[in-house]
Structure formats: C-alpha cells, structure tokens
C-alpha cells in the first residue's frame, strides 16, 4: 500500500542512498561553523559577541541545504526516477509530500546542529563573552535555525518541482541567494525597502542575524517583528512548494 509510512520510507531510502546528501551535509555544517569561529576569533568591535551574531554565518549552511533540497528533487527529473515514483504512486501528491517531509526533517536537524554548533563554537572561541542563552530572543536565534532550515528545504523542493532541471534550479537558487538579494539593496531609493522583504533577509531577521547588515546598509526600521518575519518566510517557501506540487501533479511526467 502507498501509505504515508511506506512513502516516507521510500523517500528516506532515496535521500540517504546517494553520496550527494553526505557531501552537502558536511559542507552545510563545516562552512557556517568555520566562518563563525573565524568571525569570533578575528573580528574586532564591528561584530560584537552577541548570541544573534553567532548565527551570522548560518546563511552559508542554509544555502548548501537549499542546494541539497534542489538536488534531491530536481535530479529525480533528470534521472527519470520521478517517473518511476509516479508509476508507483500515480496520484503523485502523496509522494511529493513525503519528499518534502523527509528533506524538511533533514533540514530541521541540520538547522539545530548549525544553530547550536555555531553558538557553542563561538562560546569556545570567545570564552569571556556573555553568550548564555537567557532571553527568548537568544533561544530564538539558536533554536530558531531549525525552523529557518526547515522552510529553506521546503523552498528548495518547491523550486526544483517548478523548474524540473538540476542546472536550471541550482542556477536560480544560487543567483537568488548569492547575488540578487544582495544587490537589490543598492537600487537607489527603493532598494533598501525591497531588501527588507527578501525572503532570506526575513529569515535572518527572525534569528537575529540580520543586525550586521542593518547598520552599514542603513536599512529603515524592520516592517515586521521576528515571528512576523518567520511567517512571511514560511509563507513564501510553502507557496513555492504548493505551486510546484500543483504543476507537477498536472503535467505529463
């Protein structure tokens, strides 16, 4: 039977039986942790040692997770295994839901490890700084990464379902995260306002890791609170996934 349990098991076997997962996870973990350690070891007063700033480099891990989610989904179109999946699950939607749950779960765990890892490593590098998790904002910074990474994975699966090609989808998510969000801010006048509505900036606002950019970029005051920003980020990623599912369920495979 194509029960949820069976479909989750199938997607788990798929994800954990290729090397791409392990490479991506390794990079997604090492990159943010290494940068965090460097920031805290070498940076001067421009990066004060706060709990929020321990998450400054988490965006690197987030981007690699986005790549992982795209690979796990779009490669199925490239290799034809999506067609086999639809042969086995002709209604399609349950299989796609199972995929997003499994990739999302991996993202959530990765987010926890990156969040706490970055914080722990920063505390090791700067033992004198007060990095104790006391306020709700502190916990949101560290624990909140799990939610940010969860929805990042959802976005990756969604974009891959919409574009159905590894090369195309990777290009789009990398150009978006590495170039577009960053350069929009330099559009005279409206750029800074547009930037405040960029999804990954929203994610940074939620975990309190956007502070670094707020000062030098002279951003206007944030239009949303942290949880508002999380809701905004989540809504965008879920919308991408839902659009991807609707398109995939209808299209000829």
């Amino acid at each position, binding site marked *: 039977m194509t029960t949820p349990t069976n*479909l989750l098991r199938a997607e788990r076997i798929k994800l954990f039986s*290729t090397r791409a997962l392990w490479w991506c996870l390794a990079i997604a973990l090492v990159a943010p942790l290494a940068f965090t350690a460097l920031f805290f070891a070498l940076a001067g007063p421009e990066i004060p040692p706060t709990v929020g700033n321990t998450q400054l480099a988490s965006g690197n891990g987030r981007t690699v997770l986005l790549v992982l989610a795209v690979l796990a989904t779009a490669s199925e179109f490239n*290799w*034809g295994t999506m*067609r*086999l999946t639809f*042969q086995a*699950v*002709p209604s399609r939607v349950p299989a796609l839901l199972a995929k997003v749950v499994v990739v999302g779960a991996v993202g959530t765990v990765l987010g926890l490890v990156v969040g706490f890892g970055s914080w722990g490593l920063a505390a090791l590098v700067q033992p004198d700084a007060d990095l104790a998790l006391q306020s709700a904002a502190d916990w949101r910074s560290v624990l909140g990464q799990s939610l940010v990474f969860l929805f990042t994975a959802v976005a990756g699966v969604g974009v891959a379902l919409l574009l159905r090609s590894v090369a195309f989808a990777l290009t789009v998510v990398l150009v978006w995260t590495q170039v577009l969000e960053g350069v929009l801010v330099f559009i005279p006048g409206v750029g800074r306002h547009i930037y405040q509505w960029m999804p990954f900036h929203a994610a940074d606002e939620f975990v309190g890791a956007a502070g670094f950019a707020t000062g030098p970029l002279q951003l206007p005051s944030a239009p949303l609170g942290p949880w508002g920003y999380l809701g905004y980020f989540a809504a965008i990623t879920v919308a991408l996934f839902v659009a991807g599912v609707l398109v995939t369920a209808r299209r*000829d495979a």
Partner: protein
Amino acid sequence: MIEANALTKRYGATTAVSELTFTARSGRVTGFLGPNGAGKSTTMRLILGLDRPDAGTVLVDGVPYRQLKDPLRTVGAMLDATWRHPGRSGRDHLRWLAATNGIPDKRVEEVLALVGLTSVGNTRVLQYSLGMQQRLGIAAAMLGDPRVLLFDEPVNGLDPEGMAWIRQLLHSLAAEGRTVFVSSHLLPEMAQTAQDLVVIGRGRLIYQGTMADFVARTSEHGVRVRTPHTDQLRTALAGQAEFTEADGVFVVSGLDSDRIGQLAFDAGATLHELSPITGSLEQAYLDLTRDAVEFPAAPSPEAAQ
C-alpha cells in the same frame, strides 16, 4: 489484459497517437511494433498514466492505471532502463521502489536473484553495463509480482545472449498467465518472441492479430521459375496460374512448386530454377508501415479484426 480504446495524444501540433484501439491478452506475449517515432513509447506512457490522453481510455485489467491501489503489484513496467540514479546501488534502487508499495525487502533479494544481479547489488549503478541496467529495469518491473508487464525496447543494446535471456523470460511470464506487452522496432526479434502483434505507424493502428496470421498475410507467396523453354512453360501455365515473365524468368502465383515442376515436366520444359519465394518478414513489415504513411487515415478493416 490491456485495453486501449480510441487513445489520442497530441504534443502541441504533433499527434503522437491517434485513435489507437487494441487489446493485449493475458497469457500471451503481445509484440508492439512500429518504426521509430510511431508512438510506441507514448502509448506505454499513456497506459501507465504518466501522460494524460487527449481522448480515449486505456484500462489495465479493467481499471484505469491511476485508480490502481498498489500499481506495482498489478503492473510492472520498464519503459527506460536509464530511469535510475547512477550514484545509487542497484539494491537501494529496488528498495526505495519496493517501499512505495509496501513490498518487503525480501522481494528485492528475490528479483535481484531472478535477474542475476545479487553479487553486484551493492555496486553503484553507474558501474553497470548496459545489459546489467536492462536486468535491473526488469527486476524493478518484477518487484510486485504483477499480472501485467510492459517492456519498452527491452533488447535494445543487448548481446545475443541477453536477447535470448529476455525472450525466454517473456515466454515464461506469459506461460504463467500474465499479460506481456513488449515493444520493439525490430521485427525479426519480435517474430521470435511475440504470439500476438499490434503494429502501429504514425500513431495509428496498422495491424492487430496473431503473429502467425501476420506472417501468412504479409509474406508474398510465389514461385520463381527459370527455363530456356519459355514457350512450353507459358503454354503449360496458361489457365492454371497467374504469372509474370521477364527474360526467361517466371514468377508464378497460385500454384506450389511441386505442381509447377510436374506441369513443366509434362510440357517438356527443362527447369534451371524452381524456388518458392517467401517474402521476408522485414520487407512485409516495411511495406505495411510505408502504407501507413501513404494512407494514414485508413487502417484496413481486416487489419483491425
């Protein structure tokens, strides 16, 4: 059993399959034959619900594919042996596919053994030869022990040993009462494999019936006769049979070679050659599919029997 009824599929301006009606019976190997681009793969995708038809229906054991509860337990299919992730082992490939329909891992081991891939089960598929990939595809089709099997060009790129293996497998599957529907663009291979035949050209049905009927219907019957005594032979044959004559070579139809030999002997005509012409199957097939191109709207009534 597979029943296609007036299936039509268009991709943009191209009509890939047009009002295609045919039946593949259980307990038989049905060959699905047509030149490249005739619409065979499209038809297979329509059967499996991968593509939606613009018109018409196709039922597998009486049910549209998309309504099957555990599709892999009813229909096993290998449309393309390259539908696998090259970085995944053959065993893992089968395990995830089995898991979707709740098929136990024990069955994965059984089908690996069936196709002789047990020893390379943990090897990544990118190291498989073409033949091994075909075997993996067949193993995947067999996972659910299905009553209906679809194979698209299963012998493509295989060595003679592999071809023989697949032929034998298809026969034994049909002998167990399953429906075996197998496409090919190679008629000689099909002639050794299929009991029934569905021939299409340009997306339209050209012939449906048994392989034996197809051979009988399409093979040209005639006898080639060469003699220096053309006058005697001409007289002897006149009124007995239809024949053509050119440079001392007669092609006689309507009489077998025994009878022609006797007539020539009685007439005192020395024969230098007396040879039955059994038109090659391949030629007959080419003639048929060429007709389909020339008269694309008219599958002849007896062809649709």
